[in-house]
């Protein structure tokens, strides 16, 4: 199996490089600059210890493969992505799962990342344990960085027990009414009139909450999650026609593409210092910029 050292050697110390994952969101945040060499991170589940609730996995591993391994032990990760996406790709993009209210943000799932830095050497961010404040939190910085600070080769992720039961419901109502009736729904989506709710947990609890939503708000059970409109943007307090708000996460799924909001001058300068600090020569995923992703 190709290991992390092979990945390092492949990246080498010079020349612009970009990492190809599943290629499912290749154009997000800009396409790699012309002339960039394409590399792939190692793939495969390296170690999974269900009693530790952590998994070591190559960043090039298709997410579906990881999900399957974990499911075999009744566990899951907070990562979610389109079919064919890789673990590293999902982390680099940093978009959280639709069930974020239950499983948490992607950035909270990454415990350790072994990366190749701009100088071609390996560096490690974070550590293998589920709790860790040893040094700076580079893991959270790497999630959503589109590979501009380091190329993620292998990661340790935190896993969670999968819910026994999952149920989607839909009907007219407000997010507040839903939240008043449910303890911690996994997802609440709202289009301005209709609300979709994902209930997860132990069977009896899910059924009890579903019954409450049914009798108080008239919500009905549906087979699957609602289909999301294609574009994501940040919620600005107004919901355009045909858009769906992910309540509590600030994400809107809409039919039209929205530009990414401009960061303030102080934030932009800080971000620029970070990028040039990690990659002075601009060789890691040139052409990509996380500030161009609308949400």
């Amino acid at each position, binding site marked *: 199996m190709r290991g992390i050292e092979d990945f390092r050697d492949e990246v080498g110390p010079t020349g612009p490089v970009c990492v190809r994952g599943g290629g499912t969101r290749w154009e997000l945040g800009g396409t790699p600059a012309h002339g960039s060499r394409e590399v792939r991170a190692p793939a495969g589940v390296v170690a999974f210890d269900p009693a530790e609730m952590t998994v070591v996995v190559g960043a090039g591993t298709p997410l579906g493969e990881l999900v399957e391994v974990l499911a075999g032990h009744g566990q899951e990760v907070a990562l979610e992505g389109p079919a064919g996406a890789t673990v590293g790709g999902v982390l680099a993009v940093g978009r959280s799962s639709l069930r974020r209210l239950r499983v948490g943000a992607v950035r909270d799932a990454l415990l350790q990342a072994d990366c190749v830095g701009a100088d071609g050497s390996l560096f490690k961010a974070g550590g293998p344990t589920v709790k860790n404040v040893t040094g700076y939190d580079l893991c959270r910085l790497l999630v959503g960085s589109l590979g501009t600070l380091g190329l993620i080769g292998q990661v340790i992720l935190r896993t969670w027990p999968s819910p026994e039961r999952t149920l989607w419901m839909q009907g007219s109502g407000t997010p507040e009414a839903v939240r008043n009736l449910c303890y911690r729904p996994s997802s609440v989506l709202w289009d301005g009139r209709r609300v979709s709710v994902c209930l997860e947990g132990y069977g009896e609890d899910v059924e009890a909450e579903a019954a409450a939503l049914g009798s108080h708000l008239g919500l009905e059970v549906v087979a699957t999650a609602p289909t999301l409109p294609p574009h994501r943007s940040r919620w600005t307090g107004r919901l355009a026609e045909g858009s769906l708000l992910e309540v509590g996460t600030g994400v809107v799924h809409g039919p039209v593409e929205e530009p990414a909001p401009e960061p303030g001058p102080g934030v932009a300068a800080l971000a620029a210092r*970070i990028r040039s600090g990690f990659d002075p020569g601009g060789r890691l995923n040139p052409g990509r910029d996380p500030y161009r992703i609308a949400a």
Partner: protein
Amino acid sequence: MWWTRRRSTDPLTRDLEAAIGADSVEGGASARLLYSRDGSIIRGGKAGVVCLPGSTEQVAACVRIARAHGRAFVPRGAGTGLTGGAVPCDDPVVIATTRMDRILEVDVDRRIAWVEPGVVNLDLTSHLAGTGLHFAPDPSSQQACSIGGNVANNSGGPHCLLYGVTSVHVTAVEVVLPDGEVVVLGEEEGDAVGYDLRGAFVGGEGTLGIATRIAVRLTPDPPEVRTLLLDFTTIEEAAETVSAVIAAGIVPAALELMDQQVVQAVEPFADAGYPLDAAAVLIVELDGLPAGAAREAESVAAVARECGARTVRIAEDEEERARIWKGRKGAFGAIANIKPSYYLHDTVIPRTRLAEVVTGVNAIAERHGLIVMNVFHAGDGNLHPLLVFDHREPGVMDHVFAAGEEIVRLSLEVGGVLSGEHGIGLEKRRFMPLLFSPEDLAAQRALRDAFDPDGVANPHKVLPSGASCGDVQDLPEIPEGVWV
């Protein structure tokens, strides 16, 4: 204010007084002495001037004035930190946030609150009484520590096992950067666009700037809580139970272990009914919706019995639950009845290696003739071995530091890390190379330098550096008369 004062002659102090008022700048010997320390055992810090600003603008002014005078600055909250994070090196301007203690806004519908950094952790939760919401991070120091300090140290607590540490509950931070500029990192809800600068700032231990306003996520109170007390005749069985519970697919809200020494010390005052002959007890709390909490409680009880638990007690009512927790939370107090001083360690190990490491820690303490008490967040493998001693005994400090280092090394040997929640500060920076390669440390340095290119924010903390910091560079060199 009630104390009158003369005008200062020191130009730095004069400028600070002009900017934020004479009542908020203290340069006297007493003030400098007290602001040279925090809750840690580290002595030898040296504060220059102490500022107690009341607003973001005043914090920014302090930072800019410090820089203009070529001085570093050190942010400080309540000073309960245990690794010397707020201990000043090289006469810096100490900027304490204790007067910035307002809860600015609570949005119950969106479950967000904006607070100033000096708000005491527990005050926020008390303030939320009646809303059905609370602030989840619950460090054992929550009655005293500031939310700004929690953010800086990415603090944890018993209930962070299920709910996550501070970073999970902080959505945005207004920060005065080391150059005096004010920025907001993160978004009230969800992820900000671009790099997760908020995530990078949290846990920065005051070296990346000063948090001046914080947006925190509020967590709904669980409808059902089950608290179990399990007791074991060997510590191995207790540790095995911890792994088995997790392996059974249950993540309790809290899973705490206390060894016999602790149990015997706290029982007289907590009256919790801890069995005094138990080698270890586990407190397991399960919460959530009623059916799930009940089923998980049953599973935990079954797993525990299989692993050899002698008794399994489920708290009947709120009062019994409170008594079970009282013992856990009062562990520090009980220690004072044994010896006047303690040195608390904080390493994390894989939770499947608990038994062997606890046994190893006990052996280390014994070799050094010290008493060790284990009371810790077992659920996430976060050890807190407490070395208890009387600092007045000659030579005892050498043993305390040596034992501490051996505990750290043992934790790393089994694949652990240096700190689970107290941070690195001054205390553990010399151990950083044991866990990180030069390349790993260079990456961390790149982050710090981006925030603070000139190295003026809380210098000498977190990362090992060649530079010295007065007497405090190495713990074992702490001057005699140190007290813990």
